[in-house]
């Protein structure tokens, strides 16, 4: 019996993995060759999807990207023995893109059947939860604090402090909420994990429930991720049946239940208070803080709300120790960060590394430059509210403080590459347009500012009084940054002003005929 592995990840499926799977099973059957096909998550080498692997005495051998029409030729060439073929890549763990990473959170993503709790256990799963049950809640919270883990959703707030606040809060009902509303363009790490290793998220949330005294958890997952939604719900059902979730977590007598809830296409619901409103069944309107969710969150109760990657880092921390996690990273950014290479990039995918690699290392060494082959002109780091950086700033190290110091933010770790065909005035306009479309409307700087921003940039692009209108853009950005209630309006100035600062030439194109204004 030969074992084959093929991702059921969204990217693989979006590139025909379903048809590849059918062709493989049919081709093997016709040849009288017994095979089993395990549908895994993705290893994160997304330019190679669908990435097919076959188990051989020399380890798993990868082939990719495999199209359905490649399957017959692969089988004829001796795929099932790991034989040579133009698509043969060798052992995945020896490929530089993977070999040079520090996979802690994503250690088993792509290796196992995401819905097999046996395979999860066999690869070190549940060791964190078992350690947490032995340690007790207070010690778990201190371990999370000692690890230096900071919120991976983008804000970078120390996770341990949040956990302490919720643990200390007195209430009959507390909640744990996972923010899986991964709306930033250029980010997909939450999705990869929920599709490829959902038990890690479930284990992290169960640990959080035990540590803070919360008995009910919710995962708020965006509707744009239909496969992650299915995968996570299936994993929750498996976890319930196995006693990992429910009235007595792993037989401990401690209750923790978990439910996934589907968002409905509102970017703003990635903002934590808006997400809570949405979970309560209302419009996703941002709440003023204080009170902070740790004290008055979901249904007015103390609520621990963290990003998928924050929860998913916790099982490793508990299993291997806070000190081991804190050893990775630089400065005040400890541990690993799953960076995501996206946009116009030759080798796009997930790169988990300790904080501190330069943008250049990621974009050039891992990413191989642009997909189009044209010169790189800009990278946007941290999603639609993140700054655009020019090529000359690619030597910036990626940690929370260094990015902030350069007028940007790390956000959720997404890096979107643009080649030299990009028009940065259009990108600045899009930042305002996006804010106008997705603003919840509660505060004036964001609701009105974004609309006015589009209008003013349009005047600049049309060459109407550009100097005067650019001054107006700067003034508007200052008002939005200082006066908005949340990051939506408050950070929209980042892409706008970084485009203006680093690419001023793109805002002068329409100006020539009116140069004498």
């Amino acid at each position: 019996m030969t074992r084959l592995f093929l991702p059921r990840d969204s990217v693989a499926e979006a590139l025909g993995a379903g048809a590849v799977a059918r062709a493989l099973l049919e081709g093997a059957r016709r040849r009288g060759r017994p095979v089993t096909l395990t549908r895994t998550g993705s290893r994160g080498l997304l330019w190679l999807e669908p990435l097919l692997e076959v188990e051989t005495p020399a380890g798993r051998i990868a082939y990719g990207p495999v199209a359905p029409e490649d399957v017959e030729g692969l089988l004829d060439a001796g795929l099932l023995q790991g034989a040579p073929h133009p698509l043969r890549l060798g052992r995945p763990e020896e490929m530089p893109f993977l070999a040079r990473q520090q996979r802690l959170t994503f250690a088993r993503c792509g290796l196992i059947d995401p819905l097999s709790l046996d395979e999860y256990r066999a690869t070190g799963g549940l060791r964190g939860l078992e350690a947490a049950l032995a340690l007790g809640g207070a010690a778990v919270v201190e371990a999370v604090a000692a690890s230096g883990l900071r919120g991976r959703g983008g804000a970078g707030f120390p996770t341990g402090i949040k956990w302490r606040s919720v643990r200390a809060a007195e209430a009959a009902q507390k909640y744990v909420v996972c923010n899986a509303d991964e709306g930033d363009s250029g980010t997909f790490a939450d999705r990869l994990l929920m599709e490829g290793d959902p038990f890690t998220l479930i284990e992290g949330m169960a640990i959080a429930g035990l540590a803070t005294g919360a008995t009910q958890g919710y995962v708020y997952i965006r509707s744009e991720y239909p496969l992650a939604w299915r995968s996570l719900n299936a994993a929750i059902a498996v976890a319930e049946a196995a006693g990992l979730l429910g009235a007595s977590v792993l037989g401990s007598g401690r209750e923790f239940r978990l439910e996934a809830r589907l968002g409905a296409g509102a970017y703003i619901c990635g903002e934590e208070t808006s997400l809570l409103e949405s979970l309560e069944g209302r419009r996703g309107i941002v709440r003023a803080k204080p009170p902070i969710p740790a004290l008055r969150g979901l249904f007015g109760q103390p609520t621990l709300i963290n990003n998928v990657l924050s929860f998913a880092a916790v099982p490793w921390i508990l299993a291997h120790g806070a000190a081991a996690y804190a050893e990775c990273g630089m400065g005040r950014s400890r541990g690993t960060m799953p960076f995501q290479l996206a946009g116009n990039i030759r080798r796009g995918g997930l790169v988990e590394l300790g904080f501190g690699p330069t943008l250049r290392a990621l974009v050039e060494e891992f990413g191989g430059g642009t997909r189009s082959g044209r010169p790189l002109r800009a990278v946007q780091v941290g999603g639609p509210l993140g700054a655009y950086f020019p090529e000359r700033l690619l030597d910036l190290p990626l940690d929370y403080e260094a990015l902030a110091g350069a007028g940007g933010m790390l956000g959720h770790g997404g890096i979107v590459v643009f080649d030299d065909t990009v028009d940065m005035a259009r990108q600045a306009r899009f930042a305002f347009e996006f804010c106008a479309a997705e603003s919840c409307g509660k505060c004036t700087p964001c609701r009105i500012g974004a609309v006015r921003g589009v209008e003013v940039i349009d005047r600049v692009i049309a060459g109407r009084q550009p100097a005067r209108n650019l001054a107006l853009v700067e003034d508007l950005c200052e008002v939005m940054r200082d006066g908005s209630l949340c990051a939506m309006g408050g950070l929209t100035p980042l892409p706008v002003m970084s485009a203006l600062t680093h690419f001023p030439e793109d805002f002068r194109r329409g100006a020539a005929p009116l140069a004498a204004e």
Partner: protein
Amino acid sequence: MPGHTDWDAARAAAIIAAHRHREGATLPILHALQDAFGHVPQEAVPLIAEALNLSRAEVHGCLSFYHDFRREPAGRHVVKLCRAEACQAVGADALHAALRAAYGVDWHGTTADGQVTLEPVFCLGLCANGPAALVDGEPVARLDAARLAARLAAA
């Protein structure tokens, strides 16, 4: 999309009843109604309001806030095209302009034969393999006009 049935108040009431006891039931109910009928018609609003002890305005406010919920039926196939930055970086804007011209519709529009509705979406998490789309809820990467036509023909 295929699989949707015409509005049926009794069926809607049963769907609402199945979810009404959940915490924060509004979104699960709206999703379930849209899954069943393809959209959430106006007739559903008072039913939801009564079941959840909310005002009609509160339900309407929720229904109209979220981009996903549709108050009118869509075409037979719904194509959600990603307009976000990572897809822009690989030519999504030009592709979308060409598709809208080819199908003769603007955003949110449905072709004259009722076959295809084009909708914008901001990020599908396929950012390393754009341009990306969801075709009847299934992800498609490295989209071009031919690939979309092939998907629609096969659906």
